């Protein structure tokens, strides 16, 4: 008996304590070795270490969206760019002018502009890059924003042509664009990285389609931005960028940029805290201010805003009185407090923000008025909360959105007695004209151009994807005609802003959304990182100025 016990305790003792000791010893030794190795590396120069929230399988710069898009400006040049204050700067294009009533635009390419192998950026490269971005199979998510007004875009985008007929290249340094309709702000639409400038013969195959994996170092790709991609391992989720010696702009300060995929936000936060990383692609947590300080997520407010949109085609949202009641029943100060009590985003009452005309728009904020809301619901065709069908929210993903949606639901329960509410994280299966089973969509709207008209054309004009899919085929003729008028006015014409403001007021009377917040473009970098300010294109505005120190 005793012997059996001895045997038992000896074996457990061994397997637990000793193993633990051995394991700890080994891990400490390895850690010290690892830290030494890193110190040596750090002396080579300043390294920006970025934690990326996803193992992206596709880093092509031509997608016009997704997580990789946010680093496009690091390795690609754009025609022009906006700084973090919204001021436009020349880049590959040094000058632009329009003729024939803003229908034809002539752009001059910087004669010094070159790729990372030293070869010149020519008009053919610009044309080829835009053509390949417009091809459907390139799956560029936002090419329409840049190119939709270029003559021939509809044909290329719909798969029936391979060349944008509106682009001409009279010489190596000149691009002439003919539009299908006049657009006084066309030049502004180019100042982003949605369709960056690539070497056309590398990115575009004989058949006009994008060449698979053309952008990797293994394919011998050349880059137009301040850094070049020197290593990429998609399976491990790591990328390394080093300065491009032939970059035609200012010399980059960083010695290297390393991007590693860290999916879990809690882990990423501790890595940032411990100093192993000093930047993040997009880190949204409810405790980010407590964890990493107020500066980590701070940034300029950009013309993008987040709202809860009502699907006006869906019961009970087809009744304007129900919509008005639902909006009046929500205390939007509380909504902000429930979701982003510490910032960085700002509460907003309207769609427009951070564009000329947003501040004095004359948009009367929706009031918080529970009594009036109750009365309206009783007067509506549904007669009260019992007869309403279940209200389904989609796009409720992430802690802040969950908190906001649950706050709204609770306000409706308290103030109107509505209890049948459901929430789903994804929009996918529910969205789109053929699968409209949803009453409320949470999504953002915005523009890459500091212009009120293009902001509203992308959110409430009946042609916009937002109006068609999220607002349930919303169409207000007054809004449409005001915006159409406005879009023909010059950028500096006060009428342009005034008409847009009118359109937004007309939209207000339809009671179709619960305004939430105006988005801050967070820097997502620790205090030691300087010059990483981002712009309304969600890009680092001047990547050559990033420094770590």
């Amino acid at each position, binding site marked *: 008996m005793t*012997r*059996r*016990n001895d*045997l*038992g*305790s000896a*074996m*457990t003792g061994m*397997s637990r304590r000793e193993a633990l000791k051995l*394991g*700890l010893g080994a*891990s*400490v030794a390895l*850690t010290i070795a*690892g*830290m030494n190795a890193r110190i040596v590396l750090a002396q080579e120069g300043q390294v920006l270490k970025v934690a990326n929230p996803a*193992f992206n*399988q*596709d880093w092509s710069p031509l997608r016009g*969206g*997704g997580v990789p898009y946010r680093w496009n400006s690091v390795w690609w040049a754009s025609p022009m760019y906006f700084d973090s204050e919204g001021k436009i700067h020349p880049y590959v294009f040094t000058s632009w002018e329009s003729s024939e009533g803003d229908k034809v635009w002539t752009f001059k390419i910087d004669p010094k502009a070159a790729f990372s192998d030293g070869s010149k950026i020519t008009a053919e490269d610009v044309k080829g890059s835009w053509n390949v971005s417009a091809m*459907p*199979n390139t*799956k560029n*998510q*936002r*090419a*329409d*924003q840049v190119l939709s007004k270029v003559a021939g875009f509809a044909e290329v*985008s*719909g*798969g029936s042509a391979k060349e944008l007929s509106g682009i001409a290249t009279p010489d190596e340094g000149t691009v002439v664009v003919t539009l299908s309709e006049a657009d006084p702000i066309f030049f502004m639409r180019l100042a982003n990285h949605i369709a960056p400038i690539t070497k056309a013969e590398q990115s575009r195959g004989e058949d006009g389609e994008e060449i698979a994996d053309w952008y990797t170092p293994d394919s011998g790709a050349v880059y137009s931005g301040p850094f070049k991609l020197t290593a990429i391992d*998609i*399976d*491990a*989720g790591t990328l390394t960028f080093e300065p491009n010696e032939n970059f035609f702009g200012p010399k980059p300060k960083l010695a290297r940029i390393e991007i590693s*995929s*860290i*999916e*879990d936000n809690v*882990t990423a936060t*501790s*890595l940032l805290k*411990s100093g*192993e990383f000093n930047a993040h692609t997009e880190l949204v947590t409810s405790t980010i201010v407590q964890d990493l300080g107020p500066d980590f997520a701070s940034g300029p407010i950009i013309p*993008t805003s987040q709202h809860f949109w009502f699907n006006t085609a869906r019961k009970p949202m087809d009744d304007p009185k129900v919509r008005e009641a639902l909006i009046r029943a929500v205390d939007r100060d509380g909504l902000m407090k429930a979701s982003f009590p510490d910032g960085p985003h700002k509460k907003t009452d309207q769609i427009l923000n951070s564009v000329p005309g947003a501040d004095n728009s004359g948009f009367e904020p929706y009031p918080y008025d529970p009594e009036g809301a109750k009365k309206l619901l009783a007067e509506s065709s549904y007669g009260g909360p019992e007869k309403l069908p279940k209200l389904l929210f989609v796009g409720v993903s992430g802690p802040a959105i969950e908190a906001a949606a649950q706050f709204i639901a609770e306000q409706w329960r308290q103030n109107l007695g509505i209890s049948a509410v459901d929430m789903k994280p994804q*929009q*996918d*299966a529910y969205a*789109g004209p053929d*699968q409209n089973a949803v009453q409320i969509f949470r*999504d*953002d*709207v*915005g*523009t890459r151009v500091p212009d009120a008209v293009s902001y509203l054309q*992308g959110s409430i004009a009946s042609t916009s*994807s*937002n109006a068609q*899919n999220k607002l349930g085929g919303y169409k207000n003729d007054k809004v449409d005609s005001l915006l159409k008028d406005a879009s023909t006015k010059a950028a500096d014409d006060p009428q342009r802003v005034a008409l847009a403001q009118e359109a937004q007021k007309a939209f207000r009377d339809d009671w179709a959304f619960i305004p939430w917040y105006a988005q801050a473009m967070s820097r997502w970098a620790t205090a030691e990182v300087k010059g990483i300010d981002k712009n309304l294109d969600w890009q680092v505005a001047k990547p050559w100025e990033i420094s770590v120190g």
Partner: protein
Amino acid sequence: MLRYVATRFAIWIPSVLLVMMAVYALAFYGAGDPIKLIFLRAPGDVAYNPERIEAIRESAGLNRPFIEQFGYYVWNLIQGDFGNSLTSGRSVWAMVKAAAPVSFKLALCAIVLTALVAIPLGMIAALNQNRRLDYIILGSALFLWAIPAYVAGPLLMVGLIVLLPGVNVPYGWGGVFDIRILLPLIVLSFQPIALIIRQTRAAVIEVLSEDFVRTARAKGVPEIVVALKHILRPVLTPVVTQLGLIMITIVNGAIFVELVFGLPGLGRLTVKALTNSDYPVILAITLIGSFLVMISNLLVDILYPLLDPRATDAKRSR
């Protein structure tokens, strides 16, 4: 033996085709179109242009009838072509080839760790049945069984950082001999260890009451010799039969462990493919998962008679 394996294989093929067709049909008719998802999933100002999306779907072959698409897929599969991911355009084979070894290595290590830890502990518990040591081991096993991997993982990881501030966050994959494998491995092994401790304990208790063990003890054979010589073999039998179950536990647990520790394995690939309704990837993973379970069941059937010769006829007859 060879013929037996071949038969099993032949039965497996129609089953997996059936399952794949069911999965494909569910994804195809319900889960949303992968091309539309690319555009709908993106925030705000994305250009949802119906003609453009139709053009993409057409060139990806998604507008053809379901049966035609599935037939086409199977035809390509027979020729060894897994197709390309609809979301990223990458070859599915390349994605699986990169992800599978990570998961397999992790699973193999977990099985080894489980066997090394759980069988001795189970035996110790049984030899001390109803004494304090037994309660401690059994209690810990039940406790481990009760903690989900997605709770244990983050807790251990952050606990480690808090306790040992100098240690790097154990995140990512560096291979089997990298220190970072430790935590995911431990978390992944929790449930299998608990399972095997209980199995071993029960089996040993049963064997201890058998006559030949009593005889050996009565003869004064040292306890450890009795344990190793007479008990280990019968004990291994139920353990081996649980291999399939362990495999399933590990495959399912791996999804959480891989997410929490950022391992680029099959589990993470699964979750990604499902959220994007990326059919070719989902189908490839179904195929692999099904293959794994089939193989581990086959192994059980082959190993079982070796361990317990009495069972040969009964087991084979099925």
